[in-house]
């Protein structure tokens, strides 16, 4: 079995376990809905129609809900010391990183789609018309989010205050992703098309490539003891 096959095996194991218990995706979803709801109360009704407010609300919801999933990513491996079992497998550490990354990517993306639906109803955004563009942005941003998030999830896994710490580590580093995703989805939602914010897309791509590569290289150091 190849490199990617093994990585997918790890991701599938996480997905299957999640499908059984539904612990994480459910709480992520609920949390995402709640963020959107709370923002709704915090923003004046007149402002809600401002072009730049909607993507801001949407991306805040994604980030806050997504971090819940990342928190569980490695701490779920702590039960029965599964992480040790995984590390004992004769596979490259990069495979383990990619597997966990893929799993997180799927979870966060699934959550985002559901939250997007909820958002489009509550904020009267016709998502269907701009869906391809939004999906592209969502995909690119989720890659960056999960790439750094998976690495930092592994960094914080053995630490007592890991939930808070992960947020503190992750949010400042995610600034470019959040900015780029919010800006480019504002273009898309305004009907200007995906490539109106072309440089933002380029930034997302650069971020994804850089941090996937860096994380693959550094992951080995996080887990060695």
């Amino acid at each position, binding site marked *: 079995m190849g490199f990617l096959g093994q990585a997918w095996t790890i991701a599938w194991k996480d997905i299957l376990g999640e499908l059984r218990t539904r612990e994480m995706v459910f709480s992520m979803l609920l949390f995402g809905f709640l963020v959107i709801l709370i923002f709704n109360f915090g923003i004046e009704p007149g402002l809600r129609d401002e072009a730049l407010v909607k993507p801001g609300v949407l991306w805040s919801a994604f980030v806050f809900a997504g971090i819940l999933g990342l928190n569980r990513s490695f701490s779920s491996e702590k039960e029965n010391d599964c992480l040790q079992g995984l590390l004992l497998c004769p596979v490259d550490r990069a495979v383990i990183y990619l597997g966990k990354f893929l799993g997180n990517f799927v979870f966060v993306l699934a959550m985002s789609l559901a939250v997007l639906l909820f958002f489009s109803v509550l904020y009267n955004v016709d998502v269907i018309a701009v869906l391809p563009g939004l999906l592209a942005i969502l995909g690119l941003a989720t890659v960056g989010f999960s790439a750094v998030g998976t690495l930092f999830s592994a*960094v914080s896994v053995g630490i007592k205050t890991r939930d808070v710490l992960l947020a503190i580590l992750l949010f400042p580093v995610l600034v470019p992703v959040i*900015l780029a995703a919010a800006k480019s989805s504002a273009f898309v939602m305004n009907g200007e098309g995906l490539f109106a914010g072309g440089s933002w897309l380029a930034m997302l791509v650069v971020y994804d490539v850089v941090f996937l590569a*860096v994380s693959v290289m*550094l992951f080995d150091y996080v887990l060695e003891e």
Partner: protein
Amino acid sequence: MAEEQTLKRAFAEAPPSVIERRGGRGGGRSLWVDALGASSILAILFALYLALIWAPTEAVMGDIQRLFYFHVAAAWLALGPSFGVVAACSVLYLWKKDLRFDRIASASAELGVMFTTITLVTGPIWARPIWGAYWTWDPRLTTTLVLWFIFVAYLMLRSAVDAGHKRARLSAVFGIVGWIDVPIVFMSIRWWRTIHPTVIASEGGGLAPDMRLTLFVAIGAFTLLYAYLLVVRVRQEDLATRLDRVRHQLYLR
């Protein structure tokens, strides 16, 4: 055999490490460190004189512009040397697995927090009378704020893990990722702001020669101070580590 070696190590090492503090090898005072400290103090006094008295008063902004010299010097140290040293020592630690690099990185991050704080506080104090607002989401200011969060996160991570190689590894990984992130943050914020009109076009351009000289002196003085404080802090950590090791070896006996 091995036990005896441990014992010998403990005894061979305990007295010198104690003596070193006095004798000046690595532990405490030494001539070049004292010289560095003295020259940084002199340089700062000189820079203060230039900035507060010698440099001409800026025509539009008035005296508040005199804050500019140390504001920029602190910003330079935060973005340049402080974070650069954190990143470089993080890479070196992961490569060589020598905890000395970890100690340098952590000392540099502490100083980085200090200089970033100075930048972030003097910026608004300067901005308030000039622009009428404490904060603007200017790319440089915002990047410095993000940098502050990264530095603080780095120190939070360190405080959450027990001292040793594990802490060194985890914080090195975070230090490297954060360092790579900062230029991307700067780019993104610049694009973000240039889509809307920025409050200020360029603050550095068109500086009078006297002001430029004062700025360079201030930067030089702060850099010396940074170097001095870094050395002192690292040597403290070295001494603390050695103390710890000697105590453990004595305890193991």
